[in-house]
Structures are given as C-alpha cells and as structure tokens.
C-alpha cells in the first residue's frame, strides 16, 4: 500500500477490522485509515452525538516519560517545554498541553497524565517523531519511551459510559479528565468530539477483540476520520497543522485557558518555557490576532483558506477550518481575525468562489459540550 508520494503507508493494528466493517481507507499522517464507513460522515457524526461512536486513533503517538530522579523533577523538566502547570497535576488526572518554540509558536498540542511514577503523553500522529526528539533533547535525565505496542481507541457520545462500563464497570465512577488503569488497559475520560467519552489505550494483541466487544454493545457504531473532524470542529477544538502551528501562539489561538496561573506573570513559576517573552506579552497586552468562531450566513460552507474581509474591504484574516456542522445543521468555521475585528457579533465577509458572503464572529463551541465534570 503506497500513498500518492509513493511512501509506504503504515497499517493500523485494526486494519482488518476496518476493512471488514466496510471502512473507506485513505492515507492520513502516514497511516492507512478509515475516513468513513458505509453510513457516511453525516450519519456517523449524528450517531456519535446521540449514542456512541468508536474511533481508532492508534496513529497517535503514545509516550511514557519516566524520571531518573524524583517525580517532581520530571514534572518541572516537562514544564520547561510548555506554558502549562505540570507540577500541580494530581495523580490520576489528565491535562491539555502545548509544546511551544522560542518564537512562541506551537510545535504540537497534546494530552498528558500523571500516573504516579511517570507521565503518560499522547501527541499528534504527524508530529510524533519530532515531539519525541524534542522531548529527548529538552529533558536530559528523563527517560522518553515511545509506546509502540498499543492501540488507542476513543469511545465518544452519551452512550459511551454505559457501553464501556459493560466491559470495565469501574469507568462509571470516572469524571472528565480522570485517568485509571484497569489491568493492562489505560482509560482516560476525555476525547476530541465535545461529548462525554473515553480514550482507551490497550495492548495491540487484545485490541481487535476489545473493539469487537465494544461494537457489540448497544448503540456503538464505528466512526471514521471524516466525522471525527466535523465533531471536533463543532466542539471548537483545534486541529494541529490547520488551526494551530509554529506561526500561531497559544494566546492568538485562544488557548489561554490552557496556561494556568502558576506559569503566568506573577505566578509561582512564571515564564521559563520556550517563547515566554512573546506569550507573556500577549497575555498582558492582547495578541494581534485571535482565533474565533465563524458562522457563515446561508448554507454555503467556508472552508480552510477562505480570506476574510471587514465590511469596508480591508483584509482581516483567514479561515483555518470550516465545513458543515451536522448537529448545528449549518455551516461553521474557525479562523484568525485581526484583534480589532475579532469581536463577538461582528459581521465580516468571507470570499467564496469570488463572492464575498457575510459571516458572523461567534463564540465556540458551536455545539454545547457534555463532559461529565
């Protein structure tokens, strides 16, 4: 199996399962992955919001960070790579993080978990090799251990708890961003859809049988990458390489909620992360541009790359993700807009096929989240 560049595609451990379920396989981040199943993107999306969707996200990078000294030393070493409070994360809890570069741009976004004696990190597939190199170079004295023999499944939606509890009853007691170990299965109550749900790391050898058991639970259907993208867009979540990259700072990306007080000006461990000069300045003075939600008027979607203008014709920004939101039942988008124009309720114009169409700056998420807090 080769992609368009002739490069070999990596096969997921569950490749045969996807084929058997009628998955339409496409190249993504170097892997052969299901973009949809026979139901199609729209039905899969709506099914996830009304019942439960099972996603194979085994392409993502799983990494264990093990200290050679104390756990606090490890946490502080990891903090040196991110504008995020790692030290304050309790055992059994997960948090969102961002690797920044010296210019204050974003190298990747990630989830990390305090597992008592080590940290467990999940990074984006397309960035994982660079992230691992970055962690090895940036954290001398920390053992950076890629996890290569585990699948990663996500079970998302209002039916996720009942379905997973059918196999692992203990998950019902977990809250949003809790992490628990059930034998050799690692479960986090989190995801990328805006729904309540779980991410499940499981040894590859048992992954297909486990996935089949989940699919046999009432209401669980397999969901492809297409619906994963529309679900995360409705939830207002960033896609790395599109909505955030090395040119966007966390403040511009409207991710200041991910920068805890301890790392901000006046905090216990202020600064001390790559790009701190820019990021702290933007926190104090506001960024030059901001990632905002966008609601096009009418039914025509505004996709990535659509240029945005003020009503007087001044260029003010660009759409970074956009499409149709099946649950919102309307086109939705997100993009970067010059700060003076990034006001909720402001009307901008997006140029689609040579025509400038009105679009309103709106709050995100577009679809209310249902996390079990």
């Amino acid at each position: 199996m080769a992609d368009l560049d002739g490069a070999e595609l990596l096969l997921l451990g569950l490749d045969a399962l996807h084929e058997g379920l009628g998955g339409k396989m496409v190249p993504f981040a170097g892997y052969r992955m299901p973009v949809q199943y026979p139901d199609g993107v729209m039905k899969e999306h709506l099914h996830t919001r009304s019942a439960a969707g099972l996603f194979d996200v085994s392409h993502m990078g799983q990494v264990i960070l093990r200290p050679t000294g104390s756990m606090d030393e490890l946490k502080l070493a990891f903090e040196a790579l991110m504008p995020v409070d790692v030290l304050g994360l309790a055992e059994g809890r997960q948090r969102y993080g961002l690797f920044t570069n010296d210019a204050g741009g974003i190298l990747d976004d990630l989830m990390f978990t305090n597992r008592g004696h080590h940290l467990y990190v999940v990074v984006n597939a397309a960035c994982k090799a660079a992230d691992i190199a970055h962690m090895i170079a940036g954290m001398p004295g920390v053992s950076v251990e890629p996890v290569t023999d585990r699948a990663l499944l996500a079970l998302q939606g209002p039916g996720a708890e009942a379905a997973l509890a059918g196999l692992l009853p203990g998950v019902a007691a977990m809250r949003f961003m809790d992490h628990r170990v059930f034998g050799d299965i690692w479960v986090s109550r989190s995801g990328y859809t805006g729904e309540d749900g779980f991410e499940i790391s499981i040894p590859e050898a048992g992954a297909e049988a486990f996935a089949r058991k989940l699919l046999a639970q009432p209401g669980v259907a397999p969901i492809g990458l297409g619906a994963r993208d529309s679900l995360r867009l409705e939830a207002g979540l960033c896609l790395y390489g599109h909505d955030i990259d090395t040119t966007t700072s966390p403040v511009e990306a409207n991710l200041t909620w991910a920068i805890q007080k301890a790392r901000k000006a006046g905090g216990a461990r202020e600064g001390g992360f790559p790009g701190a000069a820019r990021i702290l300045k933007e926190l104090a003075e506001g960024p030059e541009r901001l990632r905002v939600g966008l609601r096009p008027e009418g039914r025509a979607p505004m996709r990535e790359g659509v240029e945005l203008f003020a009503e007087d014709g001044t260029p003010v920004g660009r759409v970074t993700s956009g499409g149709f939101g099946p649950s919102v039942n309307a086109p939705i988008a997100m993009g970067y807009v010059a700060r003076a124009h990034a006001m909720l309720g402001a009307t901008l114009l997006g140029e689609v096929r040579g025509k400038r169409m009105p679009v309103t700056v709106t709050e995100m998420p577009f679809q209310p989240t249902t996390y079990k807090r």
Partner: protein
Amino acid sequence: MKYTKEHEWLRVEGDLVVVGITEHAATQLGDVVFVELPETDTMVAEGDEVCVIESVKAASDILAPVDGEIVAVNQKLADAPALVNEDPTGAGWFFKMKLDDLSVLDQFMDEDEYQDLIG
C-alpha cells in the same frame, strides 16, 4: 438516459434535457449539504461551471455537458440538498437545458457503457 465522463446523467424530457449526477457520483461525494444553482435563462457553453455542490467533505463543480440555455433549476435543492443523495436520478436533478439539436446527446455513454466506466 445518457451519461458523461463527469458522472452526470442526461435525460430527454420533451425538447429539454434534464441534468443530474449519478448515484455513483453522489456516493463518492458523500452527504451533500449545499448546492449553488445557476441562473435560469442563461446561455452556457460546454464545460462551463454551472453548479457547485458542497458535501461534508469537499466542494465540486457541475459542468455544462453541452452548449445550450438553462431554462429551469431545481429550487428544492436550496432547502433540501440531501435530495442529491436520496434520489440522485429523480428528485435530486439540478437543471434543465434547451439545446439547438438534441442529437448532440448521441456522443454520450449509454447505461451499459457507463456501468463499464465505473466498473
């Protein structure tokens, strides 16, 4: 019914030809969420982009299969673009054209030839 390489179907209705996309094309596109229709009473040339279809995945153009005049469009698609997926060769039609000479349709594939194409 005749078929183009671009996966449009053409059906003669009196002195008009009705244009839509095939079931194969609709399936490949995925769920259609928006259709931009042409103006009626406009002259178009073969290959002109006359409609835009947006699916959950991407935008695609519908090209005029032949020279002629757009005399009617399926306004139902503005509110119900999913008709393209539900009934691509019936209620999901796009536009009707008036041609000078219907014999130009002879150049297009028949059902068997089209089935061979999508094989």
